[in-house]
């Protein structure tokens, strides 16, 4: 069974053809980062305009690379949220139009479910149940995945997402956007223990908070009179700030996941989302798993960042349950992973 996945939830236009939910035939991601870099982040209106320009060439390329045409498809799976509403609309409208004209079913996939199931595109994947930590520029959440389509939210961020903290600190340090890869690179050469930035463990819940950490970095820079001009590149202090900040973020993410393992008696973890591309987070989570004998599953970097293969893979499981969306499907900017069917349209064409 061939499913075309489409993801336009944020700033990347992506289309992918996946066979039987496991085998990637193509996974095209057209990044917009060159457009948004100068603004220090995504500009929603610019993003949706760019999606409109890119959606047809990206889908064409995905089909071509897979060596198939629209008539070979069993269904189209499209991300209907959460994300930027204008961006989501482009993908959803496109998918609806093709499904209508080709008489094939439409499947609505939650972006977070895509991230959560992205690990199934790798040869090594966990059995259910498992714990899923999703960390990105817009999300930080911990779920229990009981089965395909059955997810329980344990916690999420109360303020800033982990990736957002990276972007804000990067901006404070006079560095570029996106902040994650830049800080990750600097942190490798710095001392993670140089500055003791606070870690918000919030011990009575599985929620996260990264807003206070960002403020602590600001206060440190203010105290040391470092806010006026950028620190010299590769200066020891800059490297140490980057390393100490990164240690504070990754410590909390790893430790809280470890708590969830103990509390829920689930000894399998998946790590995904854009921040899962962070080398230190990957290393720390894998090391924790090794030490505690917990299975840690981290998809390759190209499947951690936004992509449509994960949407197609998730769509496969909706298809098996005949869980199709209606052509009245509307995207939703805020959509929880445990949301009911009402958000997914109801007038099925089948």
């Amino acid at each position, binding site marked *: 069974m061939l499913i075309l996945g489409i993801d336009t939830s944020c700033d990347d236009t992506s289309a992918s053809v996946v066979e039987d939910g496991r085998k990637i035939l193509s996974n095209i991601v057209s990044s917009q980062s060159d457009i948004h870099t100068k603004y220090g982040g*995504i*500009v929603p209106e610019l993003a949706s305009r760019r999606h409109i320009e890119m959606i047809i060439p990206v889908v064409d390329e995905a089909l071509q690379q897979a060596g198939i045409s629209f008539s070979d498809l069993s269904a189209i799976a499209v991300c209907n949220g959460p994300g930027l509403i204008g961006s989501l609309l482009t993908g959803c409208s496109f998918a609806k139009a093709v499904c209508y004209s080709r008489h094939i079913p439409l499947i609505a996939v939650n972006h977070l479910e895509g991230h959560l199931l992205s690990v199934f595109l790798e040869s090594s994947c966990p059995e259910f149940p498992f714990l899923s930590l999703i960390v990105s520029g817009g999300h930080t959440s911990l779920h229990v995945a009981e089965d395909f389509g059955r997810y329980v939210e344990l916690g999420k961020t*109360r303020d800033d997402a982990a990736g*957002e903290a990276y972007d804000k600190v990067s901006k404070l340090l006079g560095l570029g956007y996106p902040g994650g890869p830049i800080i990750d690179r600097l942190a490798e050469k710095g001392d993670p223990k140089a500055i003791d930035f606070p870690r918000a463990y919030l011990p009575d819940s599985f929620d996260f908070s990264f807003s206070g950490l960002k403020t602590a970095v600001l206060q440190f820079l203010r105290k040391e009179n470092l806010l006026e001009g950028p620190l010299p590149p590769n200066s020891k202090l800059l490297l140490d700030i980057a390393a100490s900040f990164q240690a504070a973020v990754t410590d909390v993410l790893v430790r809280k996941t470890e708590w969830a393992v103990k509390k829920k008696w689930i000894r399998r973890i998946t790590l995904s989302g854009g921040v899962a591309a962070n080398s230190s987070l990957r290393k720390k989570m894998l090391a924790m798993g090794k030490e505690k004998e917990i299975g840690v599953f981290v998809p390759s970097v190209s499947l951690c960042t936004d992509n449509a293969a994960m949407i197609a893979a998730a769509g496969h499981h909706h298809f098996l349950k005949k869980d199709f969306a209606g052509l009245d499907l509307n995207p939703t900017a*805020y959509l929880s992973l445990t949301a009911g069917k009402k958000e997914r349209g109801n007038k099925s064409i089948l």
Partner: protein
Amino acid sequence: MKAISNSAEATEEIGFKIGRKLKTGNIVRLYGDLGAGKTTMVKGIARALGIDRKDITSASFTIITEYPGNPPFFHIDLYRTSGGVDLDSTGIWDCIGAQSISVIEWADHAEGELPEDSLKVTISDLGNDVRDITIEGKNEKDWDHL
């Protein structure tokens, strides 16, 4: 009117009291440095409008977050618009106005362009967790008894 907050909880509570007085069509301009407690205050405002405080997170990434309702509530964050983003391309003009209630963080990034008859709330960090909160607006007397 002026108030002093000694904690994040107190800032949120002041937000709640502001939120209770908001009516459809109201716009709140929120001023304050990074880490001053703007999003914390928005949590309080939103709670007064019947939105779960946990659902209010930073809007820096999305610039605009809509909470459907009657009227809809818009949480707007212009933090990133200082980099030269044209205010028009954020889409905020489709959100703020007579049909909604909106709160705009980093309103100084749109100084002079936002409606002046809106409410202005400034949070200043005085150090040691103390925040000075100033509320100014067209009908300033309305805000003397929160």
